[in-house]
């Protein structure tokens, strides 16, 4: 795009997207399914879909992303894909022998109307093995919706309330975040002394260590037993409304597990909220270890706040992440002026308002005004920046074209990050994640200041 975007802003009513800020449901479903231990995601559609999703995940995580496909042909799309799915189920267990096969649909199979639950029911699945599914039409929502739907599928197929009294344990639905974030959230809950079940959990799957052997099903992931037992938990914390609240809601209905939806714990406020929710529900004191981390974070924030104050920032990406980042930059005294997500609408069944309303409320309480839009694209984001330049962009790799065209530093956060490494191992959540984000943001701003400084203004100590 580089310099293909005109500055003049015209209302666009065509309904198309230029440089989208989202991708399709099946990718999110595949990522979620990889968060079940011993699970092979299965893409019911043409083989290109499966290949694209695996490629995209592999590029972001720099790990193998395993998934099988129904390999549709013209015949299957005319006569229905039932035969393909039945053959696929047979072959998947014969060849790859996973514990679970997690089927998601594609635009093609949704439109021809394949009845997945019935096809699964009428197919012989080997003893002790499980096939679950989620409907993920690509023409509804985004990859975040797909993640949410597959997570919901885990609850509807697996979760069971088997005990009269709920266990002293918490379910954590982490949302579409990196394995490093999932590890960090589990660590925080463990330090709190609370037993937890996280699903989906891609830690140990998409950040598995190098062993010299390729394992189709690495050690990580939520086990089927754990997901089943989530029906016996005392509480579900859904982190991120868009990616996690639907599954939590279903657990309320199906297994009477109370649910609380929180923001993805990015920044001090959202992390505090997570700890408060845990402390209240489990009557646990916050241990010194976490208090110390929080104290360090506050120390860092005070040490560095003058670098950030009043700096203008544009943020784009997935709604739950963007919401968290907006709160974080506000807490530093920065001024978010452009905030955009590609995912349309509000979370289904959510009692709170839409993305735009939530962001606007946060801005209003900070006394800041900004462009805020959901269901939009990077063409729009770029036009905003041309008309009202910023000091910093926070977003995924696709922001690099805009960053270059406008000569603005970019801090890479979110999905996908295709041109930098290590990001998926290190958290952006919790107090430590906030420290890392602050480091990235201040490095980007100060590197730029150093680059742009005249000899006279170039300083050793900053």
């Amino acid at each position, binding site marked *: 795009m580089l310099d293909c975007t005109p500055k003049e802003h015209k209302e666009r009513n065509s309904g198309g997207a230029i440089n989208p800020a989202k991708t399709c449901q099946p990718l999110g479903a595949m990522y979620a399914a990889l968060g079940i231990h011993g699970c092979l995601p299965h893409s019911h559609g043409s083989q290109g879909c499966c290949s694209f999703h695996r490629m995209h995940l592999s590029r972001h995580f720099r790990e*193998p992303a395993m998934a099988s496909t129904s390999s549709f042909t013209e015949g299957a799309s005319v006569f229905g894909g039932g035969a393909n799915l039945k053959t696929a189920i047979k072959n998947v267990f014969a*060849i790859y022998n996973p514990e679970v096969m997690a089927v998601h649909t594609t635009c093609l199979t949704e439109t021809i109307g394949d009845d997945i639950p019935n096809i699964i029911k009428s197919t012989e699945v080997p003893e002790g093995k499980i096939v679950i599914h989620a409907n993920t039409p690509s023409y509804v929502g985004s990859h975040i919706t797909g993640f949410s739907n597959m997570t919901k599928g885990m609850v509807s197929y697996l979760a069971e309330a088997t005990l009269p009294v709920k266990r002293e344990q918490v379910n954590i639905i982490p949302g579409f975040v990196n394995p490093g974030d999932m590890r960090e959230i589990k660590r925080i809950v463990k330090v709190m002394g609370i037993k937890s079940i996280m699903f989906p959990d891609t830690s140990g799957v998409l950040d598995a260590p190098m062993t010299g052997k390729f394992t189709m099903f690495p050690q990580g992931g939520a086990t089927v037993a754990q997901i089943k037992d989530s029906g016996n938990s005392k509480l579900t914390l859904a982190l991120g409304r868009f990616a996690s609240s639907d599954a939590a809601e279903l657990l309320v209905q199906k297994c009477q597990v109370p649910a609380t939806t929180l923001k993805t714990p990015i920044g001090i406020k959202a992390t505090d909220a997570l700890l408060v929710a845990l402390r209240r529900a489990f009557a646990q004191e916050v241990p010194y270890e976490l208090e110390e981390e929080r104290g360090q974070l506050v120390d860092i924030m005070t040490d560095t706040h003058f670098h950030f104050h009043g700096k203008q920032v544009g943020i784009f990406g997935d709604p739950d992440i963007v919401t968290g980042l907006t709160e974080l930059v506000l807490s530093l005294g920065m001024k978010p002026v452009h905030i955009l997500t590609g995912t349309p609408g509000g979370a289904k069944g959510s009692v709170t308002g839409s993305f735009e309303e939530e962001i606007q409320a946060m801005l209003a309480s900070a006394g800041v005004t900004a462009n805020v839009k959901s269901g939009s694209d990077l063409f729009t984001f770029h036009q905003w920046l041309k008309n009202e330049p910023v000091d910093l962009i926070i977003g995924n790799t696709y922001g690099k074209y805009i960053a270059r065209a406008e000569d603005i530093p970019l801090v890479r956060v979110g999905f996908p990050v295709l041109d930098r490494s290590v990001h998926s191992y290190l958290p952006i959540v919790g107090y430590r994640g906030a420290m890392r984000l602050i480091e990235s943001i201040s490095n980007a701003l100060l590197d730029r200041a150093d680059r742009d400084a005249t000899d006279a203004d170039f300083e050793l100590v900053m």
Partner: protein
Amino acid sequence: MSEATAAISEREQFIATKGRRKNTIKCDADSIAGCVSQRACVYCGARVVLNPVTDAIHLVHGPVGCANYTWDIRGSLSSGSELYRNSFTTDLREKDIIFGGEKKLARIIDELVTKYQAKLVFVYSTCIVGVIGDDLTAVCKAAASRHGIEVIPVESSGFIGNKSAGYRAACEALLKLIDPVDRREAASRTINYLGEFNLAGEAWIIKDYLQQMGVQVNTVFTGDSTSATIKGAAKAALNIVQCAGSMYYLAGKLQELYGIPYQQVSFLGLEDTAQSLRNIAEAMGGGELRAKAEVLIRQETDRVAPIIKGYREKLAGKKAAVYVGGGFKAISLIKQFREIGIEVVMVGTQTGRPEEYDTINELVSDGTVILDDANPAELERFMTGQGAHLLVGGVKERPLAYKLGLAFIDHNHNRKHPLSGFDGAVNFAQEVYSTVCSPVWQYTARQGGV
């Protein structure tokens, strides 16, 4: 894992070992449902071929994903327009699926053409368009006459075949764009360069060689091409074809329609580069051209051979596995590895043709495993079984190789340096050396680490 893999007897026809039995490998067939295939779809094939046309609007008619996964993924460089590096999609929503997407498509073409003043729009059909029955041809035709530009439908619904069908759909689209020409107007010393996508600027290297020989490149299909250069394609005296899988069909059609002869070339490795330059010189009349080609070959070979020899000494005895898209590339790689002292012990392709597998079988040593449309488990089984030190593959194979403690070279969209021609041969040797001989492997379990 490997025992389980063997259980699927259907796959066995797609795998052969040289020297053990008759080597007619099954290929060019549909993948089996339930396999973790490394293959892509028709749309992907069409898009990767056409995407390097730099001044075109590449509009993907479908839900957002298809456009997103192919957004600027090829690494094709442009000397002019950057329009092709944007991602345009009709972003079909539920109501478009129910009521049809034709009106929306027309509206979006209008919007984009006005915004970007483009002369050419490719409109790609995806799976769902084939099912909801939008008449792409009619919408494109109407838009073309409305704007007085080329709006070309690409019939690339994902389920109508595999990637090869997409290559064909791309060729059909290109044919629609080429202006018919009177053969008497053909310029005698100009050629078209087919199946070259200018990854890391590779087309520019070869263009420069040809220029030194006195041959002009009329247009490349499709690296760094424009609607104008492609329109004038019929004026060339000769077509040279590099990526045969994607471009044989177009070469054949250009011969049939405009009488342009074609020949296959490869600029991977010193041997194939020299041979291809000689063949081009001969095909264009020999004589002075041939003499210039020989000067160039000698100069360049003298310059790079000592560098490559240095790498060969360091790499002697190493073994490579190759898993790439087309058969012709696999053939070139086998030869190129030989130039740097490495033997290929496993070779596979996604879409190789029977005659290419015959050539591969002649080239490799006894015991080499040859396989078509392999899945990751098979790749693992044969790479480790054959003791490979290095895998050459694409995006999805990279992390697999690394997990096994194998070095890796991307010979696909993610290549970082040009691998064509004499300088490309040096880059290739350098890349192989820097990955195979990296100190990081010392720490992996396979090499005796913890």
